[in-house]
């Protein structure tokens, strides 16, 4: 009865109950708008994933001729490699070596300094100094890389790198094995792989310091208190308890820094001297993968030349991809460990 009167009521026209329900359902979708909203979110999320995949795919696709022509020889280490756009001979080893060796120098120098900063900021720094210091470290990361390059080219190379290089080639350059890496003389301008490595170490220090600071901060206080209660000094607590505890997180931060060093372009291009020679010495000018792309891609005339550069870009993409996966895994491991112990 009641149903009948409802269906005859003037404000709700329409016949059967099912039709009414469908209309209501459709109205709900449009009035509510949630379906459209969810669709929008899904689309945006999908877009990001598609974008990431298509970067790799695009580089793979557009370097197809170079890949089939040179094969693995493109990457394998040789002392006698050719990068000769005129004769269409391309081997990327000197650039890969340049990237690896400058990043290695950067990491070796930046890790102790960054760890020192992280320890100082979390364990020692008086509270009033903490915020300004955090700010300054983050400002160091905010300076555009091209400004680092300008300063490096006109100030850092002649004032620091050139004398340092001369000193190194005079002292270490005479050792039998080690001397290969420090064979002089360094160019008068100071433009060398060593200079690039030093600039990189300055640039990646804030990255490593910020992440390992967060790692140290996340360590529960009970660890510190237990160690101090057993009679350790503060340094012993830091060195034997806190740093081993946060080891995988710190390693993750180092890998993040390494990723930044591998891909850094402008500053390195301005200070490394831009030469395709395949000398081993740190004191010689060279090229990194990123800087050879930056310098040559816009002027690459032949198809094969630009494809070879795209292949270098592909290799760089794959390298940073692997590093990021590793870093993510390590940081995830330490955070889940802390959570577990907080629960248990």
């Amino acid at each position, binding site marked *: 009865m009641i149903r009948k009167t409802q269906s005859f009521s003037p404000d709700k026209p329409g016949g059967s109950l099912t039709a009414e329900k469908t209309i209501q359902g459709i109205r709900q979708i449009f009035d509510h708008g949630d379906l459209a909203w969810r669709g929008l979110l899904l689309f945006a999320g999908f877009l990001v994933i598609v974008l990431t995949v298509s970067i790799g795919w695009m580089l793979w696709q557009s370097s197809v001729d170079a890949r089939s022509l040179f094969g693995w020889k493109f990457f394998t280490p040789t002392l006698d490699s050719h990068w000769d756009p005129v004769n269409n001979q391309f081997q990327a080893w000197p650039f890969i070596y340049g990237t690896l060796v400058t990043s290695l120098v950067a990491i070796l120098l930046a890790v102790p300094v960054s760890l*020192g900063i992280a320890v100082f900021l979390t364990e020692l720094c008086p509270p009033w100094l903490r915020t300004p210091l955090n700010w300054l470290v983050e400002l160091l990361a905010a300076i555009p890389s091209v400004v680092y390059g300008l300063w490096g080219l006109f100030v850092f190379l002649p004032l620091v790198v050139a004398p340092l290089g001369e000193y190194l080639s005079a002292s270490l350059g005479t050792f039998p094995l080690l001397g290969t890496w420090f064979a002089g003389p360094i160019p008068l301008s100071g433009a060398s792989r060593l200079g690039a490595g030093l600039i990189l170490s300055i640039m990646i220090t804030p990255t490593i310091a910020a992440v390992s600071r967060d790692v140290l901060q996340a360590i529960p206080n009970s660890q510190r208190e237990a160690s101090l209660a057993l009679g350790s000094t503060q340094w012993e607590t830091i060195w034997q308890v806190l740093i081993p505890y946060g080891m995988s997180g710190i390693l993750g931060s180092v890998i993040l820094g390494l990723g930044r060093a591998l891909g850094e*372009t402008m500053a390195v291009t301005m200070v490394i001297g831009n030469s395709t020679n395949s000398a081993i010495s740190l004191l010689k000018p060279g090229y990194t993968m990123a800087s050879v792309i*930056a310098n040559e891609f816009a002027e690459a005339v032949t198809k094969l030349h630009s494809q070879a550069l795209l292949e270098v870009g592909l290799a760089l993409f794959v390298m940073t991809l692997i590093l990021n996966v590793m870093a993510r895994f390590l940081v995830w491991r330490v955070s889940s460990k802390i959570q577990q112990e907080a629960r248990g």
Partner: protein
Amino acid sequence: MTSSSGKIALGSRRRLKNRKISNFVMLFLTGLLTILALVPLFWIIGYVVYKGGPGLNLAFFTQLPRPVGIAGGGVLHAIEGTLIITMLAAIFAVPPGVLAAFYAARNPNTRLGIGLRFSTDVLAGVPSIVVGLFTYAFLVKPMGHYSGLAGAVALAILMLPTIIRTTEEMLKLVPQSLREGSLALGAPEWKTSMNVLLPAAFNGIMTGILLSLARGMGETAPLLFTALGNERYDIRQIVTSSIQGKQGFFQMVTRIINQPMDSLPLTLWKYASQPYPERVAQSWTVALVLMFFVLFLNIAARLWLENRARKLRG
């Protein structure tokens, strides 16, 4: 007996002394390293101000570059280019970034959510030069010419991960009760998101956007083969000619963004590698202006966040 125990006591006392000394030395060293790391910051800022300061004058901001060898002239084209490219990049990057962050915050454990977070991480690690290469292959080559538009797309790709990450973090900080309250009042999901969650997280999201803008503004590598650079870029001439030609607004905008453009970092790089002393001198001034923009955005973003956070707490 007594003497040997005394020896042990003496030895342990000496060891304690050594431990205390090494404690002091190492702790002192961490402070020293912190200072050492900050030396380049002050050195760079100080030197850029010292070298670039004298070149600051009105003409620098309001004139186009003069031909090489003639003193004077400015970098108006690069300032315009930087502003246009960065703004366009923000327009491209902010809406999808914020929406993707909403998705990631709402569905953290679905397959797509995990994939989204992972690809955000990968995207954050991709070198900027590789993004430039990608944009070249994806946009410049099909279009057949370099353009500011392509440069903006490249920058947008670089800005995207920062925006997604900070927005997601901020959305996670909004108390669950706010969301539930809104839903319980009968508001649909999208209204809850736009009218409750977004305002609650707004300051944090803005901070993320400003930081990503600061990063994008200073990038050179992705613009090298997308925006390319264009010393004759003159927006006033484009606007007047399209008004005289009675072109529509849309056509005018297309003409503005669809040609090679310069930006401050690009100009800096080109000027610094030229063998003309007046160009090198100008590159220091460009560095000063660029650093002012970037550091200003950075400090503004952080101050804003801290201020709001203090207000919320107090």
